[in-house]
């Protein structure tokens, strides 16, 4: 009986392996202030997080060699096209790679939102990031409102509504 149950569970879980990641955002209850940074994007423009005060900001930490980071970039780009007009910012912080590497990568994974470069990995160390990708949603007052570890389908309406609700 136990074996039959195990086989059934294995088959059902085998199907579950192909399910998309849950589109969840984890609320951060302790109202931690997001660490400020000043980083250049791939076009040479300097971005300070504090300059975005007053609007929600989605901050994604990633690298080109991280498969789930690559997986979520297209949906982030689709989300950006919705959010851009709504006064919500999106910044992707690449960890440890140079402009050339990102430029070559962007031929396969085009993005329209700013890609910031943390080449020395100094900014990521200031944040409570354990692995890549990790994404934070910053509230207009500069506190961290939500966190997502692992990739998400960022153009999921339920997920985006949580971000919009911060405005």
């Amino acid at each position: 009986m136990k074996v039959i149950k195990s086989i059934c569970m294995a088959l059902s879980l085998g199907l579950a392996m192909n399910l998309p990641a849950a589109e969840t955002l984890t609320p951060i209850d302790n109202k931690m202030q997001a660490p400020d940074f000043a980083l250049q994007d791939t076009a040479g423009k300097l971005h300070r997080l504090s300059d975005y005060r007053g609007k929600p900001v989605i901050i994604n930490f990633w690298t080109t060699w991280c498969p789930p980071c690559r997986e979520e970039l297209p949906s982030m780009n689709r989300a950006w096209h919705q959010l851009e007009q709504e006064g919500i910012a999106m910044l992707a912080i690449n960890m440890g790679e140079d402009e050339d590497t990102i430029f070559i990568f962007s031929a396969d994974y085009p993005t329209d939102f700013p890609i910031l470069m943390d080449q020395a990995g100094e900014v990521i160390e200031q944040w409570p990031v354990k692995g890549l990708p990790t994404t934070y949603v910053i509230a207009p007052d500069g506190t961290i409102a939500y966190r997502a570890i692992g990739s998400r389908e960022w153009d999921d309406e339920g997920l985006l509504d949580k971000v919009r609700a911060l405005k």
Partner: protein
Amino acid sequence: MLKIWKIVVTSGLLMSGFAITWLVQAEVQRSSNEENGLEKWHFIEGDIEIELVQRLPDQTRAMLMKHEFSSEVVEFMATSCMFQTIIRNNGKSGSGESVSVDLTLWRMQHAGRQSGILLKEPLIESWSDQQASQKARLVVRWGMFPTQQEYLPGDYNWGLTAYGIPPAAQFDLEVNWNEGGKQYTGTIHDIICAPDVDSLK
């Protein structure tokens, strides 16, 4: 396409001093990718899922040689039995509990000996600047699995775990996690490290 051919079931309770560890009934699916031949072990118990996918030594060589590592470090890492690893809190129980994983508690059995797995912190600290530049260390710092991490429902992480035994070696892995304040352990039996190029000829 995945081919599944093995299921392992265990259950019980371990007590050591005042600490209680629940030895769980766990499903482990072993499968192989028919395109590249790499094998995968998928451990599923309640809200936690752990996937280990073989990583060929040449994959690691290719990744590290692009960065400023000495050939000695590249070869050591490539032949340290690395697995692409995914840990996920699938939240299927609906409990909303977080799952915490501490790799320092994981144990492996190989050739009659029990040991911990390789952790990134001591590895990185052991390298001189000549063996790995500061920039190169970032690749290992962020490429290898976090030693401690908490996963809320829907969270998952991806990274490399390393076991410090030769290519094609076989071992058992005792995985360990905390959910809702309870410590759990389960074993994945007969994991096989990916073979090196020599054995593929």
